[in-house]
């Protein structure tokens, strides 16, 4: 039962991702991205990472995506203009290098995955107690490690966020005519 739902979520992710890149209309692709991110959260749930899933929805969807939507909805009309020429083909000539490289990447990654034989990894098989169970409270563990083990990255990230905030605000300011 769970695997069916998982595959459904996976299918939604992949199809919406494909639609994101296939759609010419920018607004539609952003909204499809929205769907992709949601489905990604669902996948996170199946990986027993509930906190990450919620964080994804809150920050990614509620923050990043909304930011993007607001950014171009409130900007000039020309930005929204579809710079892509109206071609009937999906696979135009200038798409070919991208398709080629992505397929190549895909092939190589899949091939190395098969070589790596991830289903029979030793440290996974011998992890025993370390493997998450659905009944575990991941928040508890995340919280502890965040404050003890990963304190430095936590602080650095906060400084980083400050930098990003200041930077973005400075970059996006309006020039005052003096």
């Amino acid at each position, binding site marked *: 039962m*769970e*695997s069916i739902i*998982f595959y459904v979520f*996976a299918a939604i992710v*992949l199809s919406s*991702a*494909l639609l*994101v890149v296939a759609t010419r209309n*920018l607004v539609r*692709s952003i909204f499809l991205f929205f769907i992709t*991110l949601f489905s*990604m959260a669902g*996948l*996170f749930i199946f*990986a*027993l*990472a509930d*906190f*990450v899933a919620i964080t994804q929805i809150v*920050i*990614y969807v509620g*923050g990043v995506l909304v*930011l*993007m939507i607001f950014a*171009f909805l409130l900007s000039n009309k020309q930005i929204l203009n*579809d*710079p*892509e020429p109206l071609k009937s083909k999906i696979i135009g000539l*200038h798409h070919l*290098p*991208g*398709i080629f490289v*992505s397929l190549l*990447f*895909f092939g190589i*990654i*899949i091939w190395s*995955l098969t070589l790596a034989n991830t*289903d029979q*990894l030793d*440290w996974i098989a011998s*992890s025993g107690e*370390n*493997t*998450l169970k659905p009944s575990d409270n*991941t928040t508890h*563990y*995340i919280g502890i*490690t*965040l404050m003890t083990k*990963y304190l430095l990255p936590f602080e650095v*990230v906060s400084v*980083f*966020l400050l930098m*990003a905030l200041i*930077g*973005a*605000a400075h*970059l*996006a300011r309006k020039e005052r005519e003096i």
Partner: protein
Amino acid sequence: MIPLSHFLFISATLFCIGIYAVLSKKNAIMVLIGIEFMLNAAILNFVAFGKYDKFNASGQVFALFAIVLAAAAVAVSLAIILNVYQYYKTIDPTRINKLKD
């Protein structure tokens, strides 16, 4: 439950879709979205492996940090895109080639 390789497969697919979006989209925001795809694929990868690390929770913590950084990146990117638009009057990356030889 769900084998690890399935997660990895999905993440690989998503990553390649993201590559495609970065390389062949004529809108800077679409390129940004492609980057987001790639980030998401990586985050999924982390989370999938994090299932086997309960006590350190390193996979999931890393995923959290990645999400945060992605957000910051998007914010700054959008600001840059706005500035680029004001200078070049276009956000088509194919038309911004002033640094060519």
